[in-house]
């Protein structure tokens, strides 16, 4: 391992991403949490660039840092998230889940630690977007179309669900 610029970039991005994640768990206000999350999402986009996936990085920024975060913020604003009533059975579960997560992480880490994968030179960074485009419209055309159907369904579903029913509107 050499201390190249690439390495430092990765370390920085990883650090920001993890700090963002930790803050997500520990901040008090929901809005702050979401903001912390934006940091994570953006640094993940950076990691994508390191992995020679510029297009994915771009999409990451657009969808996650942009769209999803905004949706979440709307969600927060439309509800009353500041209800501070105490959880009933929080503590033990938190400890147990924490232990479970640590154990899980440890187990998977053992796998990763011993994982030595061969590297071959790649051409992914050359015309990355074009490669993706070719992939999507040739080999993956059918899944792609399905995704469009899925998105449509989600769109309609979301509208139906979130729309106030007339009756309720009358009542209020």
């Amino acid at each position, binding site marked *: 391992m050499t201390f190249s610029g690439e390495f430092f970039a990765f370390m920085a991005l990883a650090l920001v991403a993890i700090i963002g994640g930790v803050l*997500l768990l520990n901040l008090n206000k929901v809005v702050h949490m979401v903001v912390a999350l934006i940091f994570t999402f953006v640094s993940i986009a950076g990691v*994508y660039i390191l992995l020679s996936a510029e297009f994915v990085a771009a999409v990451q920024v657009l969808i996650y840092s942009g769209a999803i975060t905004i949706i979440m913020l709307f969600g927060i604003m439309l509800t009353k998230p500041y209800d501070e009533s105490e959880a009933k059975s929080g503590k033990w579960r938190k400890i147990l889940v924490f232990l479970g997560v640590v154990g899980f992480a440890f187990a998977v880490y053992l796998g990763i630690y011993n994982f030595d994968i061969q590297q071959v030179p790649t051409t992914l960074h050359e015309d990355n977007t074009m490669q993706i485009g070719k992939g999507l419209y040739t080999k993956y055309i059918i899944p792609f179309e399905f995704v469009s159907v899925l998105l449509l369904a989600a*769109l309609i579903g979301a509208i139906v669900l979130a729309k106030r029913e007339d009756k309720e509107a009358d009542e209020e």
Partner: protein
Amino acid sequence: MSSIPASAFLALALILFCIGLYGALTKRNTVIVLISIELMLNAVNINLVTFSKYGINPSIDGQIFALFAMAVAAAEAAVGLAILMALYRNKKTVHIDEMNEMKN
């Protein structure tokens, strides 16, 4: 060629996944639970993209998969929030431990 080993990326993904998992399983606020799930999806995406670069047969497929995953995640976030709104209208709460309509 990269100087960073694949395991570094995988480890990052693992950490993020675990954070997301922990959040999803412990947070009371449904919005945060949803966000945590997004975080887990992101961690998975990192893995996908990592393996599209590393390995014996690097190819663009991993990135395409990551894109698909993002599309699905977006759809999921939208529907999830819609359900959340509907629930909130009925129960006036966003706390997940009070949503126990499936009880018994």
